[in-house]
């Protein structure tokens, strides 16, 4: 299969959906001629024109609010928020309007809109342009939240999001835009709410999303050399959450590590741990469930500190090693 970048995969999803359905259109800051802050929409204005690839004023409240209104009236808007940090400005429109309308009007309206937005640290963009705010939106009934880790999922999940009749927030990671992976040329979708087991293992389940999936897989390679067999689950969707895949895996391994970039306190790791201990998997746990998250600080500008502020491959390796050390006889069972 041909390989393309994550950014190209997002662009293909947008273009294909716009060709497939004339109700689909894009809105955002500098997404037209400039192609967006990360070049994701580059060239789309040439094919679809300025009415469907719409440059907006610098107002996230206006972008998301207009998208919600258009969606209610039958369009299928895809809004780009230049940095996910700016979702805070548009969050009234997203949380109080888009997420609520279908419920408050007794199902008489639908809000088929998508908000795509680059998240995460690692690019030296400092505290106001590097956050991971997915937990804010996971908390809201009426929203769906996805965070693809691969080009394949970036395209497939975005297509599902565009075809979904509910507001979906798609967190794309800045560090992933240039990563490459196999993406089919024919039409396909990735279902929202279904996790993927990226690597099978027997000793520890590592649950991650987005760039942390890549770090977890690299950590799993290193741990395999030490005889520690790690299963890596890529959640892909944070809401709805694929609890079945998580619970089944933890029942198998008896140990779990949840990794996310957002700071650990009140991050989604807590939700995953709660899901595990409330489930059947409780009776299979052979060690405390571990959360790895960012430090409880705004993302620093200094590159060393920025790196230290969020979980890295070596942190995942260390956490897994430490877990296995708590069962010194585990190898005897093999």
């Amino acid at each position, binding site marked *: 299969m041909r390989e393309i970048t994550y950014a190209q995969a997002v662009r293909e999803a947008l273009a294909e959906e716009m060709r497939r359905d004339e109700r689909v259109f894009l809105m955002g800051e500098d997404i037209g001629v400039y192609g967006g802050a990360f070049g994701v929409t580059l060239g789309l204005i040439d094919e679809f024109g300025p009415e469907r690839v719409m440059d907006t004023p610098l107002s996230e409240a206006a972008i998301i609010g207009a998208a919600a209104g258009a969606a209610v009236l039958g369009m299928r808007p895809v809004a780009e928020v230049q940095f996910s940090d700016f979702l805070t400005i548009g969050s009234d429109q997203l949380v109080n309007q888009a997420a609520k309308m279908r419920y408050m009007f007794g199902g008489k309206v639908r809000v088929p809109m998508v908000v795509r937005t680059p998240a995460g640290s690692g690019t030296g963009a400092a505290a106001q342009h590097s956050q991971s705010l997915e937990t804010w939106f996971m908390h809201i009934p009426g929203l769906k939240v996805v965070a693809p880790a691969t080009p394949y999922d970036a395209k497939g999940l975005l297509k599902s999001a565009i075809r979904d009749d509910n507001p979906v927030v798609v967190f794309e990671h800045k560090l992933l835009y240039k990563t490459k992976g196999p993406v089919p040329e024919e039409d396909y979708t990735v279902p929202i709410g279904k996790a993927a087991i990226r690597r099978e293992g*027997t000793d520890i389940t590592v649950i991650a999303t987005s760039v942390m999936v890549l770090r977890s897989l690299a950590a799993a390679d290193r741990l395999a050399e030490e*005889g520690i067999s790690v299963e890596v689950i890529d959640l892909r969707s944070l809401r709805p959450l694929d609890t079945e895949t998580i619970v089944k895996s933890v029942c*198998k391994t*008896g140990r779990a590590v949840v990794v996310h970039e957002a700071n650990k306190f009140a991050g989604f790791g807590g939700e995953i741990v709660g899901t595990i201990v409330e489930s059947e998997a*409780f*009776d*299979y*746990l*052979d*060690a405390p469930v571990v959360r790895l998250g960012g430090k409880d600080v705004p993302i620093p500008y200094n590159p060393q500190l920025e790196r230290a502020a969020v979980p890295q491959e070596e942190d995942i390796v260390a956490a897994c090693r430490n877990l296995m*050390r*708590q*069962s*010194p*006889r*585990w*190898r*005897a*069972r*093999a």
Partner: protein
Amino acid sequence: MATEVRMPKLGMTMEEGTVQVWFKQEGDTVQKGEPLLSVLTDKVDIEVDAPASGVLHKILVPAGQTVPINTPIAIIAAEGEVVEPGRDAVPAGETRGSGGKAAPPGKVRATPVARRLAAQWGLDLAAIPGSGPKGRVTRADVEAFAASRQAAALPAEAFGPAAVAPAAGSPPQAAVPAGLAAAPANAAAAPVTGPQAPVAPRRIPLSGMRRVIGERMSQSAFTAPHVTLTTEADVTDLVRLRTALNEEDRRHGGPGIGYLDLFVRIAARALLEHPYMNARLEGDELVLEPEAHVGVAVALPDGLLVPVIRHASRLSVGAIARERHRLVQAARNGTLSPDDLHGGTFTITNLGAYEIDAFTPIINPPQAAILGMGRVVEKPAVHGGQVAIRSMMALSLSFDHRVVDGAPAAAFLQRIKHLAERPELLHL
């Protein structure tokens, strides 16, 4: 600066070690590089050198105790150094088992899965030694405890700490074999009649190897549902082949060819043809190994080792014999490397030398099956419509019924029988 001595990692898969004997007492002067203690691992006894010179300030783990690798076991102080009292204690969180800090009275520190299994199997959680942090009982601890209880053909005390401590005054290295060797002589010398002072039963500390055999055999016997099939093979042609090969090999200075070598070759061939026998159970999966690595059981004075002949299907019978010879020598000399002992996909055990016919071998976990070779014996048998004197041999195959069912296992044993009866087929 005080130096901590830690339980070293002496092999690829070593997880814990038993302090067998301290060669120095607290207060003795030690030189960096001189033997400080001997450590018993799964399979071998190894002397550990002092990592620093000074005074052996404190022994943290007495002889007989088993601790995970990297656990501090002693402190060597520099000459004249005063070690702060806090250093004497093993840091909390690194202790385990009986030495570990117990949970508050009435509470047992145990993982959820350990609690569930203990309840399911009717075990008293408080009686199970925990190997996790602060004595936390883990799944592996419950399983090991259950296995040891079921294996209790041995007296219960044999598993207690007292029995593991070397008897006072006994030589550290060879305690078990020397003691065993002496037994018949003592028995013969003892008066047969007349009043006697009560003689206490002899207690022999379990060697690392004995304990591992106990754990592994009970684990296998009580987790893998065993079925043993037996059949009899007419090995007259194989006897002829073996005699010829043996003479030729010896003439060229080789170690000689035994029936075991031929059966390693035969089994390797049959395993590749029946891949579900060359398998192991791993969680929810069957793992079918693409290569046949055949373990051969080697009896030792104080136990049993199963070194592995790798890629046995690719080796000639002569090469198998040479490798088997090397492994047996190394097993007897205690110089087997951990790599010689791991990675087997199937095991052969040969009791033919003891005039045994069929038996029920226990599978060497996590493998799926084990072949038991009986004696080769001349018997009257029907051959070509006539009663003739033929060389016959019983073959016993134990298999794990979780992995494979009766019919395919029987087909595998039948293939071994056919290859043994017509060894020329090995050339096909």
